[in-house]
């Protein structure tokens, strides 16, 4: 029945557009994702950009400047901040019965989650563009981006870190738990991404702990790809492994009400 199928997909599109509009407006009004996801990286970009200008030259013989090293870290920080906003909004929507209310309509609440993830992907893309353009044009990061590797690394990093956010949504019950777990996770991931100490500056075994952590591996993959190199296979496999585990746990334990 091609007509019916056409009608159905036209309606599904209309429903998705309506959900996207609502989620976008809500994300502007309560900027849990927008504020930290774009705001924090922009502020940090300015901070480390100026530090980089004050302390030019190569950090710990890595051949990279401060801003070079921080470009990947800031991208991952943006992804982390957006991922941590997922529990903040979705756990609330579940707790107040909004998701359950939607499940009484012909639309499954998973579509609302989908719309929110699309909004979050747009925010992540905006942050990436700001960091790349700002980092190179304003603060002189010497990036030589390898487009295919960069796309692969960023895609893996985003999916991995967003999945981790969804694991929190799946496992916590209340908004209080969500903000508690989200807060702890946020700072742990920020540390592991190298915000306070870049992995190149620390000694083993902490360096490996960071490089193989959920956020550190993402930073490492992006770091290689913005300097026109293939990320180490172990890093890509680490990211893929985390993604699989997080996605499995999130899907397995997800609750709509």
């Amino acid at each position, binding site marked *: 029945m091609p007509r019916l199928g056409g009608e159905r997909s036209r*309606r599904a599109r*209309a*429903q998705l*557009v*309506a*959900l996207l509009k*609502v989620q976008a*407006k*809500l994300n502007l*009004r*309560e900027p849990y994702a927008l504020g930290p996801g774009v705001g924090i990286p922009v502020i940090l970009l300015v901070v480390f950009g100026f530090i980089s200008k004050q302390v030019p030259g190569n950090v710990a013989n890595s051949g990279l400047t401060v801003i070079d090293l921080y470009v990947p870290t800031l991208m991952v920080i943006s992804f982390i901040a957006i991922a941590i906003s997922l529990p903040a*909004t979705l756990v*609330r*929507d579940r707790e*107040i*019965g*909004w998701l*359950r*209310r939607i*499940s*009484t*309509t*012909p*639309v499954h609440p998973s579509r609302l989650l989908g719309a929110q993830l699309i909004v979050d992907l747009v925010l992540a893309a905006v942050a990436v563009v700001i960091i790349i353009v700002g980092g190179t044009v304003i603060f002189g990061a010497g990036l030589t981006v390898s487009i295919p590797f960069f796309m692969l690394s960023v895609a893996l990093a985003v999916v991995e870190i967003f999945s981790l956010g969804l694991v929190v949504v799946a496992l916590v019950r209340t908004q209080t738990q969500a903000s508690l777990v989200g807060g702890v996770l946020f700072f742990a991931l920020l540390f592991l991404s190298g915000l306070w100490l870049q992995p190149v500056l620390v000694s083993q075994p902490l360096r490996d702990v960071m490089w193989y952590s959920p956020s550190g591996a993402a930073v490492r993959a992006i770091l290689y790809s913005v300097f026109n190199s293939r990320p180490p296979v172990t890093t890509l496999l680490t990211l893929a492994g985390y993604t699989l585990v997080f996605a499995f746990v999130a899907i397995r334990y997800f609750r709509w009400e």
Partner: protein
Amino acid sequence: MRPLWDTLSAVTGPSFPKHRGSFATRGQTPLRSVLLSAGNPSPTSPRGEQSAVTIKNLAKRYGDLLALDDVSFSIQEGEIFGIIGPNGAGKTTTVECISGLRVPDSGSVSVYGLSPQRDRYRIREFVGVQLQESALPPRLRVGEALELFASFYSRPLDPQEVLQSLSIKNIERTAFRNLSGGQKQRVSIALALVGNSKLAILDELTTGLDPEARRGTWALIERMRERGVTVILVTHFMDEAETLCDRLALINQGRLIALDTPEAIAAEAGVNRVRFVPSKPVDDKTLYAVQGVEVVDRKERYVTVTGTGDLAASLINALAAMGVQVSELEARHGNLDDAFIRLTRGTASTASEKVRV
């Protein structure tokens, strides 16, 4: 979008009769037995109209708690059907089984011939649900919520007309968190209707509203009836059930204990109340000995007796036989409230009263 709503808005409130035509039918048909012993087969339609919802032998258990035990009834198209019962009686579980939010352990549910489990997405097209505890995201605006829900359905009503007819056009741009309780309930009704639903399930709609907002909500439900929407109304307010509902199912401890019109339930529960002043003191024992007497209350010189049967006559005769005259006699039929209390009190307390005799 269909402007069906304007037929609704055109209705001028009090002009339509409460029980639309069903009185005549009721007059001709002998009243069905109101008290159903558990395990009775599903009651058939009293009016022979198409049934919107049919429930057969529904059972649901939460752990050790038997939430629903062999509940059967059917709801006619266009009817306002009330589900009443004490807290925790199984009212919400019943409507959740109808809307497909819960899967019964056994028994069957049919909504316009469809199964809420197998055909869940088809049913959701025409069943509008208002949930007992459900909020909208705090910053979502009323108009946006309605537009969003309208987009979910294939033949929605025009959100603007829904807003107008529920008199909430003025709060279209207000965020949910800034609404009053009554406004939130109106929005909740609007969301349950905007899909152009044939069946609306309203769960404790007026709980927590002030008397004026409650009356306003009642008027809205009356207007839904006028539009031909079948309404299932879960409530624990007897006045609400008496005012709005064509028929009631009374559920207690997971069992269906009465199923009829509010008037018939009140009448057949047979509660009567007699108040009088005796010419000489009469002790309780004497009064309890009179046939039909269940409860005796005293206040100053007044004696109030509640019970069943022709109480006033039995009392006057019994007291006259002892040479006691009765003055200031006042007798009245019990209302739904009395019936509710009598029917949900259960066998335990009835037995204890017999001990007192």
